Protein backbone atom coordinates (compact mmCIF):
# COMPACT_ATOMS: atom_id res chain seq x y z
CA UNK A 1 0.00 0.00 0.00
CA UNK A 2 1.27 3.48 -0.78
CA UNK A 3 2.67 5.48 2.12
CA UNK A 4 0.61 8.52 3.07
CA UNK A 5 2.36 11.74 3.89
CA UNK A 6 0.75 13.39 6.92
CA UNK A 7 1.19 16.64 8.81
CA UNK A 8 3.87 16.19 11.45
CA UNK A 9 1.89 17.63 14.35
CA UNK A 10 -1.44 19.17 15.34
CA UNK A 11 0.29 22.55 15.54
CA UNK A 12 1.19 22.10 11.88
CA UNK A 13 -2.39 21.10 11.01
CA UNK A 14 -3.89 24.13 12.74
CA UNK A 15 -1.42 26.57 11.21
CA UNK A 16 -2.04 25.10 7.74
CA UNK A 17 -5.80 25.38 8.36
CA UNK A 18 -5.43 28.97 9.54
CA UNK A 19 -3.30 29.74 6.50
CA UNK A 20 -6.07 28.38 4.32
CA UNK A 21 -8.80 30.30 6.14
CA UNK A 22 -7.18 33.66 6.88
CA UNK A 23 -6.98 35.48 3.58
CA UNK A 24 -7.60 38.86 2.07
CA UNK A 25 -11.30 38.56 3.00
CA UNK A 26 -10.37 38.90 6.68
CA UNK A 27 -8.21 41.93 6.02
CA UNK A 28 -10.15 43.97 3.50
CA UNK A 29 -13.74 42.72 3.59
CA UNK A 30 -14.45 42.17 7.28
CA UNK A 31 -13.62 45.71 8.54
CA UNK A 32 -15.75 47.46 5.93
CA UNK A 33 -18.69 45.04 6.07
CA UNK A 34 -18.71 45.28 9.87
CA UNK A 35 -18.56 49.07 9.66
CA UNK A 36 -21.41 49.22 7.16
CA UNK A 37 -23.72 46.86 9.03
CA UNK A 38 -24.07 48.14 12.56
CA UNK A 39 -20.61 47.36 14.00
CA UNK A 40 -21.13 45.15 17.04
CA UNK A 41 -24.65 44.24 15.93
CA UNK A 42 -23.14 42.68 12.80
CA UNK A 43 -20.68 40.74 14.92
CA UNK A 44 -23.52 38.83 16.62
CA UNK A 45 -24.83 37.02 13.51
CA UNK A 46 -21.26 36.72 12.21
CA UNK A 47 -20.28 34.73 15.31
CA UNK A 48 -23.55 32.74 15.30
CA UNK A 49 -23.00 31.61 11.71
CA UNK A 50 -19.52 30.42 12.60
CA UNK A 51 -21.29 27.73 14.61
CA UNK A 52 -24.16 26.92 12.26
CA UNK A 53 -22.51 27.22 8.85
CA UNK A 54 -18.73 27.38 8.91
CA UNK A 55 -17.75 24.96 11.67
CA UNK A 56 -20.14 22.17 10.59
CA UNK A 57 -18.78 22.38 7.05
CA UNK A 58 -15.14 22.54 8.17
CA UNK A 59 -15.71 19.43 10.33
CA UNK A 60 -17.42 17.65 7.42
CA UNK A 61 -14.62 18.54 5.01
CA UNK A 62 -11.79 17.53 7.32
CA UNK A 63 -13.58 14.23 8.01
CA UNK A 64 -14.30 13.47 4.36
CA UNK A 65 -10.69 14.16 3.36
CA UNK A 66 -9.30 12.01 6.16
CA UNK A 67 -11.84 9.25 5.58
CA UNK A 68 -11.49 8.95 1.81
CA UNK A 69 -7.83 10.04 1.38
CA UNK A 70 -8.78 11.65 -1.91
CA UNK A 71 -9.11 15.14 -3.35
CA UNK A 72 -12.52 16.76 -3.69
CA UNK A 73 -13.66 14.88 -6.79
CA UNK A 74 -12.57 11.43 -5.66
CA UNK A 75 -13.80 12.17 -2.14
CA UNK A 76 -17.39 12.68 -3.32
CA UNK A 77 -17.17 9.58 -5.52
CA UNK A 78 -15.78 7.51 -2.64
CA UNK A 79 -18.22 8.80 -0.03
CA UNK A 80 -21.54 8.82 -1.89
CA UNK A 81 -20.80 6.91 -5.09
CA UNK A 82 -19.39 7.56 -8.53
CA UNK A 83 -22.74 8.90 -9.74
CA UNK A 84 -22.08 12.01 -7.64
CA UNK A 85 -18.50 12.70 -8.70
CA UNK A 86 -19.85 15.74 -10.57
CA UNK A 87 -20.72 17.37 -7.25
CA UNK A 88 -17.11 17.14 -6.13
CA UNK A 89 -16.18 18.29 -9.60
CA UNK A 90 -18.24 21.44 -9.15
CA UNK A 91 -16.56 22.17 -5.81
CA UNK A 92 -13.16 21.70 -7.49
CA UNK A 93 -14.05 23.84 -10.53
CA UNK A 94 -15.34 26.66 -8.31
CA UNK A 95 -12.22 26.84 -6.17
CA UNK A 96 -9.88 26.42 -9.14
CA UNK A 97 -11.63 29.26 -10.99
CA UNK A 98 -11.06 31.38 -7.87
CA UNK A 99 -7.43 30.24 -7.82
CA UNK A 100 -6.92 31.75 -11.29
CA UNK A 101 -7.74 35.26 -10.14
CA UNK A 102 -6.58 34.86 -6.54
CA UNK A 103 -3.04 34.54 -7.87
CA UNK A 104 -3.56 38.02 -9.36
CA UNK A 105 -4.73 39.31 -5.95
CA UNK A 106 -1.69 37.75 -4.24
CA UNK A 107 0.48 39.52 -6.81
CA UNK A 108 -1.15 42.87 -5.93
CA UNK A 109 -0.36 42.37 -2.25
CA UNK A 110 3.27 41.52 -3.03
CA UNK A 111 3.58 44.59 -5.23
CA UNK A 112 2.17 46.86 -2.52
CA UNK A 113 4.41 45.35 0.14
CA UNK A 114 7.47 46.05 -2.02
CA UNK A 115 6.18 49.52 -2.98
CA UNK A 116 5.60 50.42 0.68
CA UNK A 117 8.98 48.99 1.67
CA UNK A 118 10.86 51.02 -0.93
CA UNK A 119 8.93 54.23 -0.23
CA UNK A 120 7.20 54.31 -3.62
CA UNK A 121 3.86 55.05 -1.98
CA UNK A 122 5.00 58.22 -0.25
CA UNK A 123 4.28 61.48 -2.03
CA UNK A 124 1.97 59.94 -4.62
CA UNK A 125 -1.78 60.14 -5.01
CA UNK A 126 -2.83 56.60 -4.01
CA UNK A 127 -5.77 56.49 -6.43
CA UNK A 128 -3.57 57.48 -9.37
CA UNK A 129 -0.84 55.07 -8.27
CA UNK A 130 -3.35 52.20 -8.10
CA UNK A 131 -4.82 53.03 -11.51
CA UNK A 132 -1.33 53.36 -13.00
CA UNK A 133 -0.32 50.00 -11.56
CA UNK A 134 -3.41 48.27 -12.92
CA UNK A 135 -2.94 49.68 -16.40
CA UNK A 136 0.73 48.65 -16.54
CA UNK A 137 2.43 45.28 -17.19
CA UNK A 138 3.08 44.87 -13.49
CA UNK A 139 -0.10 42.98 -12.47
CA UNK A 140 0.89 40.26 -14.94
CA UNK A 141 4.45 40.13 -13.63
CA UNK A 142 3.38 39.90 -9.98
CA UNK A 143 0.66 37.37 -10.83
CA UNK A 144 3.34 35.13 -12.36
CA UNK A 145 5.65 35.63 -9.36
CA UNK A 146 2.81 34.73 -6.95
CA UNK A 147 1.92 31.59 -8.91
CA UNK A 148 5.59 30.51 -9.01
CA UNK A 149 5.95 31.15 -5.27
CA UNK A 150 2.92 28.93 -4.68
CA UNK A 151 4.38 26.27 -6.97
CA UNK A 152 7.70 26.33 -5.12
CA UNK A 153 5.93 25.65 -1.80
CA UNK A 154 3.51 22.99 -3.02
CA UNK A 155 6.20 21.15 -4.95
CA UNK A 156 8.00 20.52 -1.66
CA UNK A 157 5.08 18.45 -0.39
CA UNK A 158 2.98 18.55 2.77
CA UNK A 159 5.50 18.74 5.62
CA UNK A 160 8.40 20.54 3.94
CA UNK A 161 6.12 22.73 1.84
CA UNK A 162 2.64 23.49 3.17
CA UNK A 163 3.36 22.94 6.85
CA UNK A 164 6.72 24.69 6.94
CA UNK A 165 5.49 27.70 4.95
CA UNK A 166 2.50 28.15 7.26
CA UNK A 167 4.65 27.69 10.36
CA UNK A 168 6.55 30.76 9.21
CA UNK A 169 3.77 32.84 7.67
CA UNK A 170 0.89 32.42 10.13
CA UNK A 171 2.66 33.31 13.41
CA UNK A 172 4.28 36.22 11.52
CA UNK A 173 0.87 37.30 10.20
CA UNK A 174 -0.66 37.35 13.69
CA UNK A 175 2.37 39.15 15.09
CA UNK A 176 2.24 41.80 12.35
CA UNK A 177 -1.49 42.30 12.92
CA UNK A 178 -0.92 42.70 16.67
CA UNK A 179 1.77 45.32 15.96
CA UNK A 180 -0.68 47.14 13.66
CA UNK A 181 -3.39 46.96 16.34
CA UNK A 182 -1.07 48.45 18.99
CA UNK A 183 -0.26 51.33 16.66
CA UNK A 184 -3.92 51.80 15.77
CA UNK A 185 -5.40 51.86 19.26
CA UNK A 186 -2.70 54.17 20.64
CA UNK A 187 -3.55 56.94 18.17
CA UNK A 188 -5.35 59.96 19.59
CA UNK A 189 -9.05 59.64 18.74
CA UNK A 190 -8.82 55.93 18.03
CA UNK A 191 -11.67 55.27 20.47
CA UNK A 192 -14.07 56.65 17.85
CA UNK A 193 -13.18 53.71 15.61
CA UNK A 194 -13.52 51.23 18.46
CA UNK A 195 -16.83 52.84 19.39
CA UNK A 196 -17.98 52.39 15.80
CA UNK A 197 -16.92 48.73 15.70
CA UNK A 198 -18.08 47.65 19.14
CA UNK A 199 -20.97 49.94 20.13
CA UNK A 200 -23.98 47.68 19.67
CA UNK A 201 -26.63 49.34 17.51
CA UNK A 202 -29.09 46.56 18.25
CA UNK A 203 -31.71 48.04 15.92
CA UNK A 204 -29.51 46.74 13.09
CA UNK A 205 -30.45 43.23 14.18
CA UNK A 206 -34.00 43.83 13.00
CA UNK A 207 -32.63 44.31 9.48
CA UNK A 208 -32.41 41.01 7.59
CA UNK A 209 -29.45 42.40 5.67
CA UNK A 210 -27.29 42.40 8.83
CA UNK A 211 -27.95 38.67 9.26
CA UNK A 212 -27.30 37.79 5.64
CA UNK A 213 -24.09 39.83 5.56
CA UNK A 214 -22.97 38.05 8.73
CA UNK A 215 -23.67 34.67 7.15
CA UNK A 216 -21.96 35.58 3.89
CA UNK A 217 -18.87 36.96 5.64
CA UNK A 218 -18.51 33.84 7.78
CA UNK A 219 -19.02 31.56 4.76
CA UNK A 220 -16.44 33.33 2.60
CA UNK A 221 -13.90 34.10 5.30
CA UNK A 222 -13.47 30.72 6.98
CA UNK A 223 -12.97 28.81 3.74
CA UNK A 224 -15.80 26.44 4.71
CA UNK A 225 -17.27 24.73 1.68
CA UNK A 226 -14.33 25.52 -0.59
CA UNK A 227 -12.94 21.94 -0.53
CA UNK A 228 -9.63 23.30 0.76
CA UNK A 229 -9.77 21.87 4.26
CA UNK A 230 -11.05 18.63 2.73
CA UNK A 231 -7.80 18.50 0.76
CA UNK A 232 -5.71 19.17 3.88
CA UNK A 233 -7.80 16.48 5.62
CA UNK A 234 -6.16 13.88 3.36
CA UNK A 235 -2.95 14.47 5.30
CA UNK A 236 -4.41 14.02 8.79
CA UNK A 237 -3.53 11.06 10.93
CA UNK A 238 -6.34 8.57 11.41
CA UNK A 239 -7.03 9.48 15.04
CA UNK A 240 -6.87 13.27 14.60
CA UNK A 241 -9.59 15.15 16.50
CA UNK A 242 -11.18 17.02 13.59
CA UNK A 243 -13.82 18.71 15.76
CA UNK A 244 -11.15 20.31 17.92
CA UNK A 245 -8.91 21.29 15.01
CA UNK A 246 -11.85 22.78 13.07
CA UNK A 247 -13.03 24.74 16.12
CA UNK A 248 -9.55 26.16 16.67
CA UNK A 249 -9.27 27.16 13.01
CA UNK A 250 -12.74 28.77 13.07
CA UNK A 251 -12.04 30.82 16.20
CA UNK A 252 -8.59 31.71 14.87
CA UNK A 253 -10.05 32.97 11.61
CA UNK A 254 -12.55 35.15 13.47
CA UNK A 255 -9.76 36.43 15.72
CA UNK A 256 -7.67 37.45 12.70
CA UNK A 257 -10.68 39.32 11.28
CA UNK A 258 -11.15 41.20 14.54
CA UNK A 259 -7.45 42.12 14.60
CA UNK A 260 -7.74 43.47 11.05
CA UNK A 261 -10.85 45.46 12.03
CA UNK A 262 -9.10 46.96 15.06
CA UNK A 263 -6.00 47.69 12.96
CA UNK A 264 -7.94 49.63 10.32
CA UNK A 265 -11.08 51.25 11.75
CA UNK A 266 -9.48 53.25 14.60
CA UNK A 267 -6.85 54.60 12.17
CA UNK A 268 -9.58 55.74 9.76
CA UNK A 269 -11.71 57.31 12.48
CA UNK A 270 -8.79 58.97 14.27
CA UNK A 271 -7.69 60.79 11.11
CA UNK A 272 -10.86 61.37 9.11
CA UNK A 273 -14.20 62.93 9.94
CA UNK A 274 -16.93 60.31 10.33
CA UNK A 275 -18.43 60.86 6.87
CA UNK A 276 -15.03 60.45 5.17
CA UNK A 277 -14.20 57.40 7.26
CA UNK A 278 -17.48 55.85 6.14
CA UNK A 279 -16.66 56.82 2.57
CA UNK A 280 -13.36 54.93 2.90
CA UNK A 281 -15.23 51.87 4.16
CA UNK A 282 -17.61 52.08 1.21
CA UNK A 283 -14.76 52.16 -1.32
CA UNK A 284 -14.87 48.40 -1.93
CA UNK A 285 -12.22 45.83 -1.06
CA UNK A 286 -9.41 47.08 -3.26
CA UNK A 287 -10.41 50.72 -2.83
CA UNK A 288 -10.09 50.44 0.94
CA UNK A 289 -6.85 48.47 0.90
CA UNK A 290 -4.88 49.99 -1.95
CA UNK A 291 -6.18 53.57 -2.03
CA UNK A 292 -7.31 54.45 1.50
CA UNK A 293 -4.90 52.41 3.65
CA UNK A 294 -1.77 54.07 2.13
CA UNK A 295 -3.37 57.49 2.69
CA UNK A 296 -4.27 56.68 6.27
CA UNK A 297 -0.88 55.22 7.20
CA UNK A 298 0.88 58.18 5.57
CA UNK A 299 -0.80 60.44 8.14
CA UNK A 300 0.04 58.56 11.34
CA UNK A 301 3.33 58.74 13.27
CA UNK A 302 5.59 55.88 12.16
CA UNK A 303 3.31 55.17 9.18
CA UNK A 304 6.32 54.62 6.92
CA UNK A 305 7.31 51.66 9.10
CA UNK A 306 3.84 50.28 9.75
CA UNK A 307 2.57 50.40 6.16
CA UNK A 308 5.04 47.81 4.76
CA UNK A 309 4.43 45.60 7.80
CA UNK A 310 0.69 45.79 7.17
CA UNK A 311 1.09 44.87 3.50
CA UNK A 312 3.47 42.05 4.44
CA UNK A 313 0.69 40.67 6.67
CA UNK A 314 -1.72 41.00 3.75
CA UNK A 315 0.72 39.17 1.45
CA UNK A 316 1.17 36.32 3.94
CA UNK A 317 -2.62 36.04 4.30
CA UNK A 318 -3.03 35.87 0.52
CA UNK A 319 -0.13 33.48 -0.18
CA UNK A 320 -1.10 31.02 2.56
CA UNK A 321 -4.60 30.80 1.04
CA UNK A 322 -3.22 30.60 -2.51
CA UNK A 323 -1.10 27.54 -1.70
CA UNK A 324 -4.19 25.76 -0.29
CA UNK A 325 -5.95 26.34 -3.62
CA UNK A 326 -2.93 25.12 -5.63
CA UNK A 327 -2.80 22.02 -3.43
CA UNK A 328 -6.51 21.34 -4.09
CA UNK A 329 -5.96 21.40 -7.85
CA UNK A 330 -2.70 19.44 -7.60
CA UNK A 331 -4.36 16.79 -5.46
CA UNK A 332 -7.17 16.27 -7.99
CA UNK A 333 -4.56 15.54 -10.67
CA UNK A 334 -2.61 13.27 -8.31
CA UNK A 335 -5.76 11.22 -7.72
CA UNK A 336 -5.83 10.71 -11.47
CA UNK A 337 -2.36 9.13 -11.28
CA UNK A 338 -0.05 12.07 -11.85
CA UNK A 339 3.00 12.54 -9.61
CA UNK A 340 3.11 15.67 -7.45
CA UNK A 341 5.95 17.41 -9.27
CA UNK A 342 4.26 17.12 -12.64
CA UNK A 343 0.80 17.94 -11.30
CA UNK A 344 1.91 21.14 -9.59
CA UNK A 345 3.76 22.32 -12.71
CA UNK A 346 0.67 21.70 -14.80
CA UNK A 347 -1.53 23.55 -12.30
CA UNK A 348 0.88 26.50 -12.13
CA UNK A 349 1.02 26.73 -15.91
CA UNK A 350 -2.78 26.80 -16.03
CA UNK A 351 -2.94 29.42 -13.25
CA UNK A 352 -0.47 31.69 -15.05
CA UNK A 353 -2.27 31.34 -18.37
CA UNK A 354 -5.88 31.46 -17.19
CA UNK A 355 -5.20 34.19 -14.64
CA UNK A 356 -4.04 36.53 -17.39
CA UNK A 357 -7.53 37.80 -18.31
CA UNK A 358 -8.15 38.78 -14.67
CA UNK A 359 -4.70 40.36 -14.45
CA UNK A 360 -5.40 42.58 -17.44
CA UNK A 361 -9.13 43.35 -17.19
CA UNK A 362 -11.02 44.62 -14.15
CA UNK A 363 -14.31 43.54 -15.71
CA UNK A 364 -13.11 39.95 -16.08
CA UNK A 365 -11.71 40.01 -12.55
CA UNK A 366 -14.94 41.38 -11.06
CA UNK A 367 -17.05 38.95 -13.08
CA UNK A 368 -15.04 35.93 -11.95
CA UNK A 369 -15.11 37.11 -8.34
CA UNK A 370 -18.89 37.49 -8.58
CA UNK A 371 -19.64 34.19 -10.31
CA UNK A 372 -17.36 31.86 -8.37
CA UNK A 373 -17.73 33.66 -5.04
CA UNK A 374 -21.42 32.82 -5.23
CA UNK A 375 -20.52 29.37 -6.54
CA UNK A 376 -18.88 28.69 -3.17
CA UNK A 377 -22.32 28.76 -1.57
CA UNK A 378 -23.36 25.93 -3.88
CA UNK A 379 -20.16 24.09 -2.96
CA UNK A 380 -21.08 24.38 0.73
CA UNK A 381 -24.54 22.99 -0.04
CA UNK A 382 -23.03 20.06 -1.96
CA UNK A 383 -20.76 19.15 0.97
CA UNK A 384 -23.71 19.19 3.40
CA UNK A 385 -25.71 17.08 0.95
CA UNK A 386 -22.90 14.54 0.66
CA UNK A 387 -23.09 14.11 4.44
CA UNK A 388 -26.89 13.82 4.30
CA UNK A 389 -26.74 11.23 1.51
CA UNK A 390 -24.17 9.18 3.41
CA UNK A 391 -26.31 9.46 6.54
CA UNK A 392 -25.35 12.12 9.09
CA UNK A 393 -25.35 9.71 12.04
CA UNK A 394 -23.29 7.12 10.22
CA UNK A 395 -20.98 9.87 8.98
CA UNK A 396 -20.28 10.98 12.55
CA UNK A 397 -19.63 7.39 13.65
CA UNK A 398 -17.50 6.42 10.65
CA UNK A 399 -15.60 9.59 9.88
CA UNK A 400 -15.88 12.36 12.48
CA UNK A 401 -15.71 10.98 16.00
CA UNK A 402 -12.50 9.44 17.32
CA UNK A 403 -11.79 7.91 20.75
CA UNK A 404 -10.85 10.59 23.25
CA UNK A 405 -11.76 13.46 20.92
CA UNK A 406 -14.53 16.06 20.95
CA UNK A 407 -17.67 14.45 19.60
CA UNK A 408 -20.17 15.58 16.99
CA UNK A 409 -23.62 14.44 18.08
CA UNK A 410 -27.28 15.04 17.27
CA UNK A 411 -26.90 18.85 17.18
CA UNK A 412 -24.19 18.58 14.52
CA UNK A 413 -26.31 16.16 12.51
CA UNK A 414 -29.30 18.51 12.68
CA UNK A 415 -27.28 21.54 11.61
CA UNK A 416 -25.46 19.88 8.70
CA UNK A 417 -28.60 18.11 7.45
CA UNK A 418 -31.22 20.82 7.86
CA UNK A 419 -29.87 24.22 8.86
CA UNK A 420 -27.07 24.49 6.29
CA UNK A 421 -29.45 23.92 3.33
CA UNK A 422 -31.93 26.44 4.76
CA UNK A 423 -29.14 28.99 5.23
CA UNK A 424 -28.01 28.31 1.66
CA UNK A 425 -31.49 29.04 0.29
CA UNK A 426 -31.72 32.31 2.23
CA UNK A 427 -28.19 33.50 1.46
CA UNK A 428 -28.15 32.43 -2.18
CA UNK A 429 -31.68 33.73 -2.78
CA UNK A 430 -30.78 37.09 -1.26
CA UNK A 431 -27.73 37.53 -3.49
CA UNK A 432 -29.74 36.60 -6.58
CA UNK A 433 -32.48 39.01 -5.50
CA UNK A 434 -29.89 41.77 -5.10
CA UNK A 435 -28.46 41.01 -8.54
CA UNK A 436 -31.90 41.41 -10.08
CA UNK A 437 -33.10 44.42 -8.10
CA UNK A 438 -29.94 46.39 -7.25
CA UNK A 439 -26.79 45.45 -9.17
CA UNK A 440 -28.18 45.11 -12.69
CA UNK A 441 -31.98 45.55 -12.82
CA UNK A 442 -31.99 46.13 -16.58
CA UNK A 443 -29.62 43.40 -17.69
CA UNK A 444 -29.74 40.82 -14.87
CA UNK A 445 -30.48 38.10 -17.40
CA UNK A 446 -27.58 39.06 -19.71
CA UNK A 447 -24.76 36.47 -19.61
CA UNK A 448 -22.11 38.98 -20.70
CA UNK A 449 -22.86 41.51 -17.96
CA UNK A 450 -20.35 41.56 -15.10
CA UNK A 451 -22.72 41.24 -12.11
CA UNK A 452 -25.72 39.48 -13.62
CA UNK A 453 -27.66 36.36 -12.77
CA UNK A 454 -27.32 35.37 -16.42
CA UNK A 455 -23.51 35.23 -16.26
CA UNK A 456 -23.71 32.99 -13.19
CA UNK A 457 -26.16 30.60 -14.80
CA UNK A 458 -24.16 30.50 -18.03
CA UNK A 459 -20.84 29.74 -16.33
CA UNK A 460 -22.17 27.35 -13.68
CA UNK A 461 -24.33 25.71 -16.33
CA UNK A 462 -21.35 25.16 -18.64
CA UNK A 463 -19.32 23.66 -15.79
CA UNK A 464 -22.16 21.40 -14.64
CA UNK A 465 -23.00 20.28 -18.19
CA UNK A 466 -19.38 19.22 -18.80
CA UNK A 467 -19.11 17.52 -15.42
CA UNK A 468 -22.35 15.60 -15.91
CA UNK A 469 -21.43 14.63 -19.48
CA UNK A 470 -18.09 13.17 -18.38
CA UNK A 471 -19.17 12.05 -14.91
CA UNK A 472 -18.40 8.37 -15.45
CA UNK A 473 -14.88 9.08 -16.66
CA UNK A 474 -14.26 11.63 -13.92
CA UNK A 475 -15.44 9.19 -11.26
CA UNK A 476 -13.21 6.41 -12.60
CA UNK A 477 -10.14 8.63 -12.89
CA UNK A 478 -10.56 10.17 -9.44
CA UNK A 479 -10.94 6.88 -7.61
CA UNK A 480 -8.22 4.81 -9.27
CA UNK A 481 -5.68 3.10 -7.02
CA UNK A 482 -3.31 5.76 -5.86
CA UNK A 483 0.07 5.45 -7.48
CA UNK A 484 1.81 8.06 -5.40
CA UNK A 485 0.66 9.89 -2.34
CA UNK A 486 3.93 11.16 -1.00
CA UNK A 487 5.98 13.92 -2.59
Amino acid at each position, binding site marked *: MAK*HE*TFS*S*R*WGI*ILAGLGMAVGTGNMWRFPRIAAQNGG*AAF*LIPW*ILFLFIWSLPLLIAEFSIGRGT*RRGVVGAFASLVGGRFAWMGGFVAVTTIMILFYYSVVTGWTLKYFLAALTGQLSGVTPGDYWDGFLSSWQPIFFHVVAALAGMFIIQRGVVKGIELANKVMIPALFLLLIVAVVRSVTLPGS*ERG*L*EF*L*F*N*PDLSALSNYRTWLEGLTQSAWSTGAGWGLILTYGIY*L*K*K*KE*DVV*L*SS*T*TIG*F*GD*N*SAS*LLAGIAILPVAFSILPTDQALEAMAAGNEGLMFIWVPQLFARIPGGGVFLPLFFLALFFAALSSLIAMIELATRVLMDGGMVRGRAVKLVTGAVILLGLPSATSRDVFNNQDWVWGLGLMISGLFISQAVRMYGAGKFCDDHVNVP*GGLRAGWAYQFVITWLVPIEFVLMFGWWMFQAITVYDPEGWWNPVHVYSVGTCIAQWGAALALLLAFNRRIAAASTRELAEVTV
Partner: protein
Amino acid sequence: MSGRTWLMMLLILGLNWGGFVVSLWYAVTHESTRHDQS
Protein backbone atom coordinates in the same frame (compact mmCIF):
# COMPACT_ATOMS: atom_id res chain seq x y z
CA MET B 1 -15.86 54.94 25.07
CA SER B 2 -19.17 54.14 26.68
CA GLY B 3 -19.64 51.31 29.17
CA ARG B 4 -21.80 49.46 26.67
CA THR B 5 -19.02 49.57 24.09
CA TRP B 6 -16.43 48.34 26.58
CA LEU B 7 -18.74 45.49 27.62
CA MET B 8 -19.43 44.48 24.02
CA MET B 9 -15.76 44.69 23.10
CA LEU B 10 -14.79 42.46 26.02
CA LEU B 11 -17.55 39.98 25.17
CA ILE B 12 -16.69 39.76 21.47
CA LEU B 13 -12.93 39.62 21.96
CA GLY B 14 -13.30 37.30 24.94
CA LEU B 15 -15.43 34.84 22.99
CA ASN B 16 -13.31 34.81 19.83
CA TRP B 17 -9.82 35.27 21.22
CA GLY B 18 -10.67 33.32 24.35
CA GLY B 19 -12.08 30.50 22.23
CA PHE B 20 -9.06 30.57 19.97
CA VAL B 21 -6.41 30.61 22.69
CA VAL B 22 -8.13 27.99 24.85
CA SER B 23 -8.84 25.59 21.97
CA LEU B 24 -5.32 26.08 20.57
CA TRP B 25 -3.78 25.43 23.98
CA TYR B 26 -5.99 22.37 24.52
CA ALA B 27 -5.32 21.06 21.01
CA VAL B 28 -1.55 21.34 21.27
CA THR B 29 -1.19 20.07 24.85
CA HIS B 30 -3.59 17.15 24.41
CA GLU B 31 -2.16 15.84 21.18
CA SER B 32 -1.67 12.10 21.34
CA THR B 33 2.00 11.24 21.47
CA ARG B 34 1.25 7.84 20.03
CA HIS B 35 2.56 7.65 16.47
CA ASP B 36 -0.44 6.18 14.72
CA GLN B 37 -0.33 4.92 11.15
CA SER B 38 -2.63 6.52 8.66
